[in-house]
C-alpha cells in the first residue's frame, strides 16, 4: 500500500534492525517479517529491501555472511553491536515521540496561553 510505504520513510532502518533482533535472517525473510509483523500493512517491493540492507551493512549496523541454501548462494544478516545500540536508541525515541503524540491526540489538556 502506497500510503503505508510513504509512512514507513524515516522508520525503515529501525524496523529492519528490529527484524534481526531475534537472530540472523536473509533478505526475503526480513521482508516477510516486516510484512507479517505489520499485519500486511508494510508490504514493500522485495527487491527494494536489499539496497536498504546493503546501506545498513555499509554503516556497520548489520553484517552479512554468505552460505548455501537449496543450491543457491544466500546472504544472511545479523545485528552488530552498533546496530543493537542504534535499535535501542531508535526504539526509545519512538516510544517517547508516540507517547507524546498519543497523549495530545487523545485529549490531554493543552497548556493555557496568554
Amino acid at each position, binding site marked *: 500500500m502506497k500510503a503505508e510505504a510513504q509512512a514507513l520513510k524515516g522508520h525503515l532502518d529501525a524496523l529492519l534492525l528490529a527484524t534481526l533482533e531475534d537472530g540472523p535472517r536473509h*533478505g526475503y525473510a526480513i521482508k516477510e517479517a516486516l510484512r507479517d509483523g505489520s499485519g500486511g500493512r508494510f508490504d514493500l*517491493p*522485495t*527487491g527494494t529491501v*536489499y*539496497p536498504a540492507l*546493503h546501506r545498513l551493512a555499509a554503516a556497520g549496523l548489520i553484517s552479512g555472511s554468505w552460505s548455501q541454501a537449496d543450491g*543457491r*548462494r*544466500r546472504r544472511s544478516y545479523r545485528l552488530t553491536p552498533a546496530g543493537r545500540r542504534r535499535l535501542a536508541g531508535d526504539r526509545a525515541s519512538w516510544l517517547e515521540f508516540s507517547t507524546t503524540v498519543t497523549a495530545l491526540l487523545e485529549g490531554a489538556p493543552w497548556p493555557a496561553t496568554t
Partner: protein
Amino acid sequence: MAGHDLIDDYLARLARHLPADAVAELADGLAETYDRQLSAGLAKDAAATAAIAEFGAPEVVLAAFVRQSPGRRTALILLACGPVVGACWATLLISEHAWTWPVPAGLRLAFGLALVAVVAALAYAATARTAYRRTRASAPGCLVLLLLDAGLLATAATTVPALRWPFALAAAASLTRMTLTARALPRLFG
C-alpha cells in the same frame, strides 16, 4: 537460476547493471518468492509473474539500489559541502594574494581542470537514477579530490608566511573533507 524464463530474463536485466553479489542475493530472494507462489497453488507462469510483481519492476529495484548506493550518497554530500570548502579557500587565497604565489601556470591550470573533472564526476554520480554504474564515477572523483585537498593544503602551508585565521579556516575545511572522503573510499572501491 529459479527455473523460469520470466525470472531468468528479469535477473539478466538486473545483472546488466548491478554487481554480481547483489544479483546473486536477488536471485535467491526471487527464487524463494517463486517457490512460495508455486506452493500456494499457482501454475508456473502465474507464479513467476506474481513473484516478479512482488519483487518490483526492474526500474524500481534499480532505482532503489542507485538511491542507496554509497557512490551516490557520497557524491551528494561532497557536492553539498563543496561551496562551503570553496568559500573558505577563496577567503584565504584572496586575503593572501595567492596570484603572487610562486606556483607555475601549468600547475594552476592542471589544478583547475582536475577540480572541474571532480565536480563533473560527482555530479554524474549524484544525478544517476537507474544506472547503477554511474554511481561508481564518484570513486575516482573522491580519490582526485583527496589529492587536490592535500596538494592545496601543502602549497598553502609552505607559502602562507604566518598562521592566520583564513588559513586555519581553510585547513580545517579541507581536513574535514579529507577525513570524510578517506572514510568513504573503501566503500566506494569495495
